[in-house]
């Protein structure tokens, strides 16, 4: 497949603060690509650069081989579904959707026909005359999608389009968006901070943090083979431990030598070791590779989430069998459940389950200035 969008060495800063740092990215035609990361990681800015709402400080943007770095939004064959829909409050549903066609001076009959088609596509038949301000969030969302798609763009940009919807509706809309994408064959570039959404919808996921791309891959790649501690922590739950690679397929961590399936590191190289909570088996203490004490147990419906303490490091383990708090248990880890990563700038920041989020640690730390944290956000 040929690439439709290409970013080459793109940087952008706002008020001296770097939001995007030398981003290079290729997006293939007809793909569903998700830009995933926490707020302030640069994902929305990347989308706005592609849409033409911002211009890059450095670097170039290409559309189908043509440079579009300096083209205004109305000259780009790209349409956007905005975060809070941004419907025109003075126009009804029909005129909102017809907006692009009216500008293009499409004849009336054709406008009516194409708006009808669009309304059918987004399941809003019969809504033509409705006031957009009186529609529910889910309905406004559909109007916004129809308004963008009716122009038959090559690329559709979606900026956290499902963020304002409740959980069940969000799942339905995820499926519907995926269906629309496949039916129309339009390239979707989707921005979200919801990792589950990214994994379930995308062909390719681009994980971003600190204005840089941390990893590009399929959802399974990103989950099973995270490249660094940030990706491992952000996508799903991970126990991330300091380890030393003794030789190919032998790694030392948590005071024990484990067999694993990774290789290609130099002898005694320090590494980050990822063990997913669902990949740890709880066994009798005498049968375990590691022995530990359960410090807390939480019922999660499908499984129990238990936190255990091994030499001061808190592991999270998901098990379907109940374990009592304070119980002594053994842990058994299969070689293919261990994933080895090179050390990175994120090493040591993530992976301990004393608290679930970095924010929780910061909340109780008087030395961290909250306003500085907020300044990095690109979500405004």
């Amino acid at each position, binding site marked *: 497949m040929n690439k439709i969008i290409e970013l080459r060495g793109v940087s952008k800063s706002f008020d001296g603060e770097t939001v995007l740092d030398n981003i290079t990215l290729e997006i293939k035609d007809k793909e569903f690509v998700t830009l995933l990361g926490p707020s302030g990681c640069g994902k929305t800015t990347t989308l706005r650069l592609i*849409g*033409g*709402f911002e211009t890059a400080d450095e670097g170039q943007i290409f559309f189908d081989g043509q440079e579009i770095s300096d083209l*205004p*939004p*109305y000259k780009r064959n*790209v*349409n*956007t579904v*905005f*975060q*809070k829909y*941004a*419907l*025109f*409050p*003075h*126009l*009804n549903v029909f005129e909102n959707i017809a*907006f*692009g066609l009216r*500008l*293009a001076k499409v004849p009336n009959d054709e406008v009516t026909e194409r708006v009808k088609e669009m309304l059918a596509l987004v399941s809003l038949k019969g809504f033509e005359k409705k*006031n*957009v*301000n009186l529609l529910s969030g889910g309905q406004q969302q559909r109007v916004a999608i129809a*308004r*963008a798609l009716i*122009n038959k763009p090559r690329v559709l940009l979606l900026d956290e389009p499902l963020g304002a919807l409740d959980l069940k509706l969000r799942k339905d809309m995820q499926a519907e968006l995926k269906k629309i994408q496949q039916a129309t064959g339009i390239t979707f570039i989707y921005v979200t901070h919801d990792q589950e959404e990214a994994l379930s919808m995308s062909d390719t996921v681009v994980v971003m943090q600190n204005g840089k791309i941390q990893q590009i891959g399929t959802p399974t790649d990103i989950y099973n083979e995270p490249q660094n501690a940030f990706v491992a922590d952000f996508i799903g739950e991970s126990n991330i431990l300091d380890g030393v690679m003794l030789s190919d397929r032998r790694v030392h961590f948590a005071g024990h030598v484990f067999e694993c399936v990774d290789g290609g590191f130099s002898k005694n190289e320090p590494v980050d070791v990822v063990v997913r909570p669902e990949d740890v088996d709880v066994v009798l203490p005498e049968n375990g590779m590691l022995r530990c004490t359960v410090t807390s147990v939480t019922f999660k419906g499908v499984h129990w989430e238990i936190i255990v303490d091994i030499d001061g490091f808190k592991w999270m383990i998901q098990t379907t069998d109940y374990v009592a708090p304070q119980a002594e248990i053994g842990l058994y880890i299969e070689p293919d459940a261990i994933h080895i990563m090179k050390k990175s700038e994120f090493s040591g920041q993530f992976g301990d389950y004393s608290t679930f989020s970095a924010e929780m640690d910061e909340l109780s730390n008087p030395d961290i200035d909250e306003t500085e944290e907020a300044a990095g956000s690109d979500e405004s």
Partner: protein
Amino acid sequence: MKAKSFFSRAAAAPHIVWSVMFIVAPLLFVLYYALTDPNGAFTLSNIAALPEYGGTFFLSISLSLIATIICILIGYPMAYFISRAKPSRQPLLLMAALVPMWINLLIRTFSMMAILDDGGLINTLLGTNLHIVGTKGAVIFGMVYDFLPYMILPIYTVMSKMDKRVLEAASDLGCNHFEVLLRVVLPLTRSGIVSGVTMVFVPSISTFYISQKLGGGTFELLGDTIERQFANPDTYNVGAAISLVMMVLILLSMAIMNKFADEDAEGGMLP
């Protein structure tokens, strides 16, 4: 009866007393004088005498209309410019546009006279011999100068509340800058224009000071005529009749303007 209603009624009391004393009662007085002769007997002769002032009505309405249109032409782009400036800079820009409101209207008009006069600042600086004061142009200029802030403020208020993403959406769907303005910004700021027009047109049509000073006494506007009638106890009643008709005219034009804003609401009102 709900306990709340006593207190909410009590809260309205000061305003009601105020309104009755200073708004309702004077209006009734105007009505009374307009329909009586100096001896207090009922008559329609005051109203019947009004066609005599038709020329003044026409002149006042035309000058005020022209001033209002000029205010829109200057104020709208200005409000747009301020609302699109950096948020941190907006208060300063807005203040610069509104500072004239802080200075007394009489003083402003008087100083404008000193600037525009035959031997005034402009003619001295330029070495010209322009005759400005005493022309209708000078009166229109005075109205625009005095009332422009009242046009900028309501339009700016509506514009600054406008969701910037809606403008981006328009641009995304194919509007160039001019089309964004025409198809989205203008319809969404119509209510601001309507209040701006009301706030400029009403004081313009009733002003007497501006026309007296900058008009140089060469022609009369409605405000001057009314003032002159009230200066003489014998013509109170005619003055009241002119006031009454002017009030009705203003109310009518406001009703028409509001109709504009209401039609807007049918298609989807502003937040």
